[in-house]
């Protein structure tokens, strides 16, 4: 099922126009991100690299609709999200974006299956359909035997794979991964990247924030960010 055909690649999933994010008021204004113009196509596999404090997290939060830009516009799947209110942003997050965090961020009181089902629950998916899909996703990340395990009963690598399954649950347009291998050993990290690349081969857009050069090298495109300025870069 090769979906990396050029036809699909041509569609922009994310477009940013002169996006800036500042904190504080003049004259003490600090730019976290300056006049950023990006075009990210469907099926892209992008690594964002840069030193800490460079604006990586700010860019992630903006692309993930967790935050709004101070100026400029962000289009996700063609719709301008910079003007949306809290609840509309929540809808975009649950329909278009799948998050993977460095610290997995699973809900500690829920087991693997329930964690994967949760975002589908917020999307109003019927409970039978939801369980069916969650099982399939956990099977894909090779956790069929861990369905009823709580996060505290799983290894870091396993938790991160549950998080990947959760991110894919609502079939988002974009997967945003923030240092997905930052808290796991090399072997598990490799496994996680393999899964993400497998997902990418099926047509999913993947954006990985990292300062691990080995991880960044695996991406198709690298964006380097320094002092709030984003540039096409090389590893």
């Amino acid at each position: 099922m090769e979906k990396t055909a050029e036809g699909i690649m041509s569609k922009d999933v994310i477009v940013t126009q002169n996006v800036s994010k500042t904190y504080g008021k003049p004259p003490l204004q600090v730019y976290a991100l300056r006049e950023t113009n990006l075009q990210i196509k469907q099926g892209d596999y992008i690594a964002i690299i840069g030193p800490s404090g460079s604006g990586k997290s700010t860019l992630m939060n903006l692309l993930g609709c967790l935050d709004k830009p101070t100026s400029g516009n962000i289009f996700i799947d063609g719709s301008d999200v910079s003007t949306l209110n809290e609840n509309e942003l929540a809808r975009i997050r649950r329909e278009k974006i799948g998050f993977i965090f460095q610290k997995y961020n699973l809900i500690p009181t829920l087991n693997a299956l329930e964690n994967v089902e949760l975002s589908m629950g917020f999307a109003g998916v019927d409970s039978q359909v939801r369980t069916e899909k969650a099982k399939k996703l956990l099977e894909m990340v090779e956790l069929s035997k861990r369905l009823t395990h709580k996060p505290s009963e799983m290894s870091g690598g396993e938790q991160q794979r549950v998080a990947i399954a959760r991110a894919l649950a609502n079939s988002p347009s974009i997967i945003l991964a923030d240092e997905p291998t930052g808290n796991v050993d090399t072997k598990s990290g490799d496994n996680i990247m393999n899964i993400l690349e497998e997902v990418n081969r099926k047509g999913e857009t993947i954006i990985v924030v990292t300062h691990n050069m080995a991880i960044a090298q695996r991406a198709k495109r690298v964006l380097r960010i320094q002092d709030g300025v984003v540039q096409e870069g090389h590893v």
Partner: protein
Amino acid sequence: MFRDHVKLAIKNLRHRMSRSLLTLLGIAIGIMAIISLLALGEGMQQAVTGELSSLSDVIIVSTGGGGFSSFGGGGGSNGGYFTQRDIAVIERVQGIKEVSTQLSGVGLAEYNGKTTILSLTGMDAAVMKLQYASQTLDAGEFFNEGDQNKIMIGYSIAHDTFDADISVGGRIKINGEKFFVSGIFGKQGFGGVSSDSIVLMSSRDFQKLTGQSNISLIYLRVYNVNDAESIATTIQNAINQNHGKKDFATATTMTSILQTVQNIIGILQLVLVGIASIALVVASIGIMNTMLTSVMERTREIGIMKAIGATTRDIMSIFIIEGMLLSSLGGVIGIILGVFGSQALTLILRSFMSMGGGAFQLNPIITITSVVLAVAVSLIVGVLSSLYPAWKAARMSPIEAVRYE
């Protein structure tokens, strides 16, 4: 969606089991207090109503109003007593089944060599039995219509007034005339007409003995209970006109006494429930505290839920459901505890009252209304006390929350 929220809320409560249980206990105690005090109040209400409503066709006319006692130099002053003219007026009023009177005076009593002045009351046996129907007798029985030289005496006359105790059949000389004790009233508890220092004889004996007929009270029975109020007013006005005073007499129906007593019990009940509500307020602060702590602890969790698409409403609803689960579960446990609590309270109260020998039968009554009220109150408490924590949770920015360690 709602079912998912409930599931999440239950999981969270179970995750913090001991804290949830303690919070729940707070509500349970508050509800228990309200349920048992309401049951007790309802029990009192019904006990009193049951006793008084059998007398609902009775009107009592007494000399109320202003200061006849200040004129009452020689005891024989008729300023404070009803006259035969008053009785005649009453007998002309339509709808009255019977009229009887209570006579008052004093006499010199002698027993076992000791002499003392006692106040005497004369009334017909039928009236006596009616008026003292709720009174238990310590010993003996009521004298009957037509009995002569028989008296009923109060508990303290029998035991405290003379050097020796008086028992049934005992002989007391009053104004030189011999009287036999037919019955002794039980010691008066709280409430009711005090009978502890009473000396009761028939109206005929009273008139024979004192040569007076000072009517201090008039008892009437009406045919139709519904007319009692209007008849009472008519009589009161007529007697007042006879004496040329606006407030010489007061005619009171049992219904109005009943109402007064019910009002007093109602107020008492309100005060008790008010006190119990304090427990509930404290409990609701407990819920709020628990929920706020929970919100703080779950800052990260809330952020994650928002990041994966939970709306403000989802978060609000999860926390409010948690609060409602806590309080409604506490409410149900409180109702069950309240059933036992009201029984215990009644037992304690009964043991107090039995010292007074009252015939008052007190049983706690738990009404549907009080159960519904308790459930409603606990739900409202749950919503109100989780509203602020829920709002605080929902307002969190997902970035801050996810970053929170």
